[in-house]
């Protein structure tokens, strides 16, 4: 589904963000992308939906070489990938419903159909009651869920999330993770970047670890409730610990 072959990425000025990264993520798989801040997680995710292009190597998404897709076709690649941005990237002047239904609008869906789809997706993330609100009226957790709803609305084959729990309290973080696992259980390939090792250790599963741009580990971890750091320890009873997808 997602294949990285010796991928490198350097930015102007010579700073190397990724070095010789190779891995393969199968269809329906769930994987954590772990590493400290600045390890290259966001860069790696951006390469998948071609916000940036690799300096070397190849990236295959659904068998297509992402770097060789013509610019005019990139929007079609992005429509097949749901992206949950770390900083939400919601449109401030649009309501929750309008933000979520933006992609169906691009696709030319009828208003009624768009609204129904957006409403159902918002209900799925528990935000149907806030559909008329504007992003500024929402809490960080609610904004995060709007972003997830927007990423999910087109039933993408791939869902990538960049630090989706970074701005959330432990309780909301668990809720969000549970949602990703639920999405994964329905066949969506999920790649979730996080620097919070506690969640990774608690949930276990496939984990790709980046360190200063290099993929230093690609392993399957057993979930260990006891390893969770103190911030999230109180929430480990969450059913998210029992994923039903192809996580492990």
């Amino acid at each position, binding site marked *: 589904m997602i294949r990285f072959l010796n991928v490198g990425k350097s930015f102007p000025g010579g700073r190397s963000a990724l070095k010789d990264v190779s891995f393969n993520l199968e269809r329906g798989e769930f994987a954590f992308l772990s590493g400290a801040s600045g390890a290259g997680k966001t860069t790696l995710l951006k390469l998948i939906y071609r916000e940036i292009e690799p300096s070397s190597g190849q990236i295959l998404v659904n068998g297509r070489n992402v770097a060789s897709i013509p610019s*005019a076709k990139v929007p079609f690649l992005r429509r097949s990938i749901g992206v949950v941005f770390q900083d939400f990237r919601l449109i401030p002047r649009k309501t929750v419903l309008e933000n979520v239904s933006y992609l169906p609008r691009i696709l030319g869906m009828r208003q009624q159909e768009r609204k129904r789809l957006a409403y159902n997706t918002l209900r799925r993330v528990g935000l149907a009651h806030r559909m008329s609100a504007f992003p500024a009226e929402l809490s960080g957790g609610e904004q995060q869920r709007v972003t997830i709803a927007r990423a999910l609305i087109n039933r993408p084959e791939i869902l990538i999330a960049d630090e989706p729990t970074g701005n959330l309290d432990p309780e909301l973080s668990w809720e969000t993770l549970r949602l990703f696992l639920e999405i994964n259980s329905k066949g969506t390939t999920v790649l979730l970047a996080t620097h919070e090792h506690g969640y990774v250790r608690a949930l276990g599963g496939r984990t790709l670890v980046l360190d200063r741009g290099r993929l230093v580990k690609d392993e399957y971890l057993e979930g260990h409730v006891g390893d969770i750091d103190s911030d999230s320890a109180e929430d480990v009873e969450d059913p998210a610990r029992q994923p039903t997808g192809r996580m492990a």
Partner: protein
Amino acid sequence: MLVRIFGYFVSEAAVSLRRSWKVSLVAIVTIAMSLFIGGTFLLLTANLSRVVEEWRDEARIVIYLTADDLATEGSRVLEQASEPFWVTAVKEVSAAEARSRFENMFPSVRELFKDWEEEPLPPSLEVTFDPEVVGGERVDEWLASLRSDPAVVMVDDDRDWLRQLEALIAILTGLGAVVGVVLLTAAVFTIASVIRLTAYLYRDEIEVMRLVGATELFIRGPFYVEGFIQGLLGGLLAVGGLYTGYLILNPRASTTFLGNVVVDRFLAPEVLLSLLLLGSLAGLFGAVLSLRREKLG
């Protein structure tokens, strides 16, 4: 589906116009000014051209004869004047009739000739001709021979001042075109700047649109429509201004000869539509120009 997408462009453009109405107003007024000035030239030249066409149909060549010659030499000149095939009629105007015409035309100065013993104005022959046929060297030769005739005081050819009027119209048309193009170019660049500024204001939003899979056309479409609407509104403002000016000036101007000539009729509907279309296309062009090299977002 296309209708829905176009509807989205229009609604987004309307939101943007409302949101940044002050800068949009600058663009609209700029384009309105250029079209108003261009339209004013069109109004003047259209009215002048119409008058010239009417006068061309009524144009004559008047051969003024020496006094009393209408009875003696007049018949010879009359015969010479009637010869060419382009001449449709020759009318004799006696000195008395000429004076009578003058007094009717200028009643305030009719007392001027009251005590004159002789007729003040010469008799004449009024030659009407087919304006479609008349012209060329043979006419000039014919006029030259009449002018050299000792029985002829003067030959007044209406076509001389019609030609001068046509030259004036050509100058006005050229001037209008130059001024219009210069102002329209300025308006296009103003719209381009306004659209670029708007796109800059929306840059974060545009980035999000792009990342969730919007095509370039979907992102740029609302800006193109916004430019088009700005141009259209500018055109409507210009047409409204021209019509208001016409309504104000026409009743006052009709009492004067010049006024009657220059603002007698308003612009034809097709010309007004052309102005609106020109404004709209200028706006659209400005938008396309502003986003041509922009990597939005």
